[in-house]
């Protein structure tokens, strides 16, 4: 999930932009539609150095149904963080530049042709950005993309770059007051303002995690319960030869926690493998970039320990309550 959020944040705060402006009230970023004139208007505001309108589109290219296409004015490429590393920028409407990752994936280089929405484009350069999502796409002239998407005169969002020392919050407030139909996005935490999809996905992820924890907890309880039942006689022997309840308790709980620690080890490895396998899928590869932070693993570790502890409580209680004489009779 953090990989997805990070990719979105990269798109919303590309290049030198301090924040971005999108249409208010849309359920998904791709539905945002802003009149191109607003770009010029925002640029005249105090403390604003530059405002850059861009249009994004998704096209089916090769195996990828979500191939990202940027529509941006040629002179604004560096503002949105696109650096050409090979060849040159596009100057004609039938030219485009391709992201490094997309170039490798599609095996296209400078001089090759690429078909987008039944139109043929010449590739004039290869670019690189710091955002994985963008590197897997292409960029072409804003006018051309507007024409293809039948969005003449409109952009999807406006990147805003401020003068040095300007107060971001103040400028954002000024824009939102002046244009009630627009909203500003400064950080990933504000993504929910424009992308309900991401919020929904976040909620779904939590729900799935919660279910997994409950199922895991029941699994641990069941496994440990079976283990205690199977070893009832052994527990009886241990109690008969003088082992204290406390020692039995620490063994059963310890085993339960150990079980969860093994679970987290294999779960984490399996999860990483699964996430990486998902990125190999052509449809998802362009949208997903797994990010592994130590917080994720720490959270998983703490959850596993808690599940082990809580899941092991009842079997442990049963084991320590066994009378040695009853346990010894157990068949």
């Amino acid at each position, binding site marked *: 999930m953090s990989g997805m959020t990070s990719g979105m944040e990269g798109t919303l705060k590309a290049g030198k932009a301090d924040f971005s402006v999108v249409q208010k009230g849309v359920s998904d970023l791709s539905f945002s539609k802003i009149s191109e004139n607003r770009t010029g208007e925002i640029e005249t505001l105090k403390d604003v150095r530059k405002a850059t309108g861009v249009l994004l589109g998704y096209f089916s290219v090769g195996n990828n149904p979500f191939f990202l296409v940027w529509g941006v004015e040629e002179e604004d490429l560096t503002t949105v963080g696109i650096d050409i590393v090979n060849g040159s920028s596009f100057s004609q409407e039938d030219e485009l530049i391709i992201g490094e990752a997309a170039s490798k994936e599609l095996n296209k280089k400078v001089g090759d042709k690429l078909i987008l929405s039944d139109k043929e484009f010449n590739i004039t350069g290869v670019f690189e950005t710091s955002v994985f999502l963008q590197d897997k796409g292409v960029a072409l002239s804003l006018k051309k993309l507007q024409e293809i998407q039948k969005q003449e005169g409109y952009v999807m969002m406006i990147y805003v770059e401020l003068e040095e020392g300007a107060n971001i919050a103040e400028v954002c407030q000024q824009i939102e007051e002046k244009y009630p139909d627009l909203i500003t996005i400064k950080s990933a935490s504000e993504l929910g303002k424009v992308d309900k999809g991401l919020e929904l996905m976040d909620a779904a992820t939590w729900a799935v995690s919660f279910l997994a924890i409950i199922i895991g907890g029941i699994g641990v309880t069941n496994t440990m319960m079976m283990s205690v039942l199977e070893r009832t*006689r*052994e527990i*009886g022997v241990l109690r*008969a*030869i003088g*082992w204290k*309840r406390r020692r039995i308790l620490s063994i059963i709980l310890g085993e339960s926690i150990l079980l969860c620690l093994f679970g987290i080890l294999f779960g984490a490895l399996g999860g990483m493998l699964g996430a990486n396998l998902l990125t190999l899928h052509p449809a998802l590869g362009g949208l997903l970039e797994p990010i592994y932070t130590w917080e994720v693993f720490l959270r998983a570790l703490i959850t596993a320990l808690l599940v082990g502890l809580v899941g092991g409580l009842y079997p442990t209680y049963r084991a320590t309550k066994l009378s*040695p*004489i009853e346990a*010894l009779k157990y068949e």
Partner: protein
Amino acid sequence: MDVIIKTTNLIRTFEEGRVRAVNGVNLNVQKGEFIAIMGSSGSGKSTLLNLIGTLDKPTSGEVIVDNINLSTLKNLDEFRAKKIGFVFQLHNLLPVLTTCGNVEIPMFELGFSNKERTRRAENLLQEVGLGKRLDFMPTKLSGGERQRVAIARALANNPKIILADEPTGNLDSKSGDEIVHLFQELNKQGRTIVMVTHDEEIASHANTIYHMRDGKILRSN
């Protein structure tokens, strides 16, 4: 001679008093004595053994072991760990541990170091004639050998009293004889042994034989 086990009017009932498993037993066992308690199934001999070994609590009456009145005793686990060595009909060894590991189990409660535990366990296994089977898993041993490991385990904390509940019940007569001779050896070293059995030949090795029927001790010879 000192009395090491003394029961006075000992009663243990089950099913709300309808079954009197032990019904007013007065028993004195001298220090260093080897006694056998005989009787048919359900005569109450195992229940009596469990009451002496603090695995069970009497309905009434009292048990005094090594001058300790068990009814006043708070820490029964510690008492069992230090004073009593149990040998059951089934060896009850932990299948995941080696013979040495099994013998070490009772020593955990007395806080021996790892090294000390292993050394003691090895000595005990040698004493019961299994010096060459230290690293064997219980499944690789014969029935008699397993019971000998169980006896070594009972001796782990050097208890004064060994309580054995049908220790030869699952063994052939040759292995049974070996086990009872082992008990005789331990008795010669000064340990008090209380053995429950229904095998007269096995019981004949004891100094004193008691018979139980319907929860009462009938006679001794």
